[in-house]
C-alpha cells in the first residue's frame, strides 16, 4: 500500500510539556518517570528469578526514550514498572510525581500483538480507553456518536486509516492493525505512552512507515514515550535518548542522548553519523550478551 505522510495539527489540544528540555523551574514535577534503585524479582525463595537489577532512571516529561538490550534483559519489566502492572521488589518507582499506580498518570500502552477486540469495529476498538478513563468515561454514553467518534476518526486519518473506521479487525492487515493499535494507545491523550516492541511483527517497509507515523504523532501530542525495541535503527530513528541494558538481571549500562534533527527521515538512517551510532549500540549489546554468566 502506498502511504502519504503528512503532519496534521492534532485533533485535540495536546497536553504536552514544552518542547524545551526539563526547565529548572518545575524541578522534580517535570519528571514523568523516576526509578530509584528499583529492582524486580519474580517468585520467592529458591525459585525466584531476578528480572531487573537495581536500576535508577529519570525520564523527564515529553522525552522519547528507547530501551534496547539483549532478550530477556528486563526491558519489558521497566515498562511494566512504569505502568504500575508490576511493583518493584526493592526501591521506588515514581510516575507523574506519585508512587506508581495505574491511576497516577494517564497511560497509553501498545504491544506487538495489536489485541483488537474482534466483535467491535475499528472505531469502537479505538474508543475503548474513553470508556474506561475519566474524564471521558462519564461522557462516553453521550459522546460516543459525536465528539468521541470525531476524535477517533481524526486519529485514524493521521495514521492513514481514513475510511477504515467501520471495518472489523479481521478485515485489516497486520500493519493496519498496528496503526489502529497506536490510535487506541493515544486516544485518551495519555501523558505517558508505553510501547513494547509495537512493530516487531511487521515487515521492514511497513515498520519504517510506522516509525514516521509515530514520530509525527509524538511531535504533535508530545507524550512521554518509553519504547522497548530490539531494532537499533528503530531506536535511533525515533528516540531522543537510548538506554542500553545488560543481560538478565538487567541494568542500564549506557544512556545516550540522540540529537539528530527532527523530523527525521528514513534516509537519515543511512548517513554516517547514524550508522556509527548503530554500530556503537550494537557492540554494547554484543558485549552484554557475551557477558551472560552460564546459560541464557
Amino acid at each position: 500500500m502506498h502511504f502519504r505522510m503528512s503532519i496534521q495539527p492534532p485533533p485535540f489540544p495536546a497536553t504536552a510539556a514544552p518542547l524545551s528540555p526539563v526547565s529548572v523551574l518545575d524541578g522534580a514535577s517535570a519528571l514523568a518517570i523516576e526509578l530509584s534503585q528499583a529492582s524486580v524479582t519474580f517468585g520467592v525463595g529458591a525459585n525466584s528469578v531476578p528480572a531487573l537489577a537495581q536500576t535508577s532512571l529519570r525520564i523527564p516529561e515529553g522525552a522519547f526514550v528507547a530501551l534496547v538490550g539483549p532478550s530477556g534483559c528486563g526491558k519489558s519489566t521497566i515498562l511494566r514498572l512504569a505502568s504500575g502492572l508490576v511493583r518493584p521488589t526493592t526501591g521506588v518507582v515514581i510516575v507523574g510525581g506519585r508512587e506508581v499506580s495505574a491511576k497516577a498518570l494517564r497511560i497509553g500502552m501498545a504491544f506487538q500483538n495489536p489485541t483488537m477486540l474482534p466483535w467491535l469495529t475499528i472505531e469502537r476498538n479505538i474508543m475503548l480507553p474513553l470508556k474506561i478513563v475519566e474524564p471521558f468515561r462519564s461522557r462516553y454514553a453521550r459522546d460516543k456518536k459525536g465528539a468521541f467518534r470525531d476524535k477517533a476518526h481524526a486519529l485514524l486519518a493521521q495514521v492513514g486509516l481514513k475510511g477504515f473506521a467501520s471495518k472489523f479487525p479481521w478485515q485489516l492487515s497486520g500493519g493496519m492493525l498496528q496503526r489502529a493499535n497506536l490510535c487506541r494507545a493515544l486516544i485518551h491523550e495519555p501523558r505517558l505512552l508505553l510501547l513494547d516492541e509495537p512493530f516487531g511483527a511487521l515487515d521492514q517497509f511497513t515498520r519504517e512507515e510506522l516509525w514516521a507515523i509515530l514520530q509525527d504523532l509524538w511531535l504533535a501530542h508530545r507524550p512521554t514515550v518509553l519504547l522497548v525495541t530490539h531494532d537499533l535503527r528503530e531506536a535511533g530513528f525515533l528516540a531522543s535518548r537510548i538506554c542500553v541494558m545488560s543481560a538478565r538481571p538487567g541494568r542500564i549500562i549506557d544512556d545516550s542522548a540522540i540529537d539528530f534533527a527532527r523530523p527525521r527521515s528514513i534516509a537519515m538512517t543511512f548517513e554516517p553519523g547514524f550508522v556509527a551510532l548503530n554500530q556503537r549500540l550494537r557492540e554494547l549489546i554484543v558485549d552484554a550478551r557475551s557477558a551472560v554468566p552460564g546459560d541464557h
Partner: protein
Amino acid sequence: MADPRLKQRLWSAGLIALFFLGWELFCLVSGMSDLILPRPSQIFATMVQRFPVLWPHILQTLATTMTGFALGVALGVLLGAVIGVSRTAYDTVYPLLIGFSSIPKVAVVPIFVLWFGSGTVPAVLTSLAICFFPIVVNIATGLATTEPEMEDVLKALGASKLDILWNVGLPRTMPFFFASLKVAVTYAFVGTVLAETVASNRGIGNVMMSASSNFNTPLVFAGLFILAGLGVALYVAFSLIEARVTGWATRKNDLLAA
C-alpha cells in the same frame, strides 16, 4: 441449480425423508409387529389423532424444560463467571462441579421427590441440574482465554476487574456461551422427561410411561417424536440467536480491498 446452498439443503432434506421411508419399508417388508417397532406413518397418525390429549402434556413438558433451562442458564453464567475470574473459586468449585456432573441424574430424582413431593418441581430441578454444567464450563473457558496483553492495556488505563469483565471477558465468552446453550437446551429436555417418567402424573415423559405399560407402542414413539421435534426447534431457535449475536466469531474471510 444456481444456488449451491439450496441444493445442499434439498439433498439433506431428501436424505432425511429417505431415512423415514426406509424405516417404513423395513417394517412393511419384515412384517414387524407395531408392538415392537411401529411404522413412522402409524406414529404420525397416532400423534395427530391423540393431539388434543397430548397438547396439555406438551405444554407441561415445554414449560418445565424452559423453567429448568432458564434457571440453569442463570446459575451456569453466575458460576462460570465466578470460576473464570477467581483462582480460588476455580480450585474449590471446579472439583465439586465435576463430581456433581458425574452423578447419574436418575439417582438424584428420588431425592428431589423426597424434598418437594412428586410433580413439576423435581422435574424443573432435574432439568436444571443436567443442563447447567456445559454452560459453566464454557463461560469459564471463555473468560480464561482473554489475552494477557489486552488485560495489561486495560489495567494500565486503570480499569477495574469489573470493567475488564464487562468490556472484554463477557463479550469474548458469547460464542462459547451460545454453543453451550444449544447443547444445554437439549439436555434440559432429557432432565425434564427423566423426572416426569419417574415421578410425575403430567408431561410427555409420563404419557410415554403409561403408554408403554399399556403396550401402546405407537403412542410411546409419538412421544419420542414430539420430544425430538421440540429439541430440534429450540436448537434452531438458539442457533439463529447465536448467528445474530456472535456473527463476528464465525465471519467469512472476505477479501480486503487494498
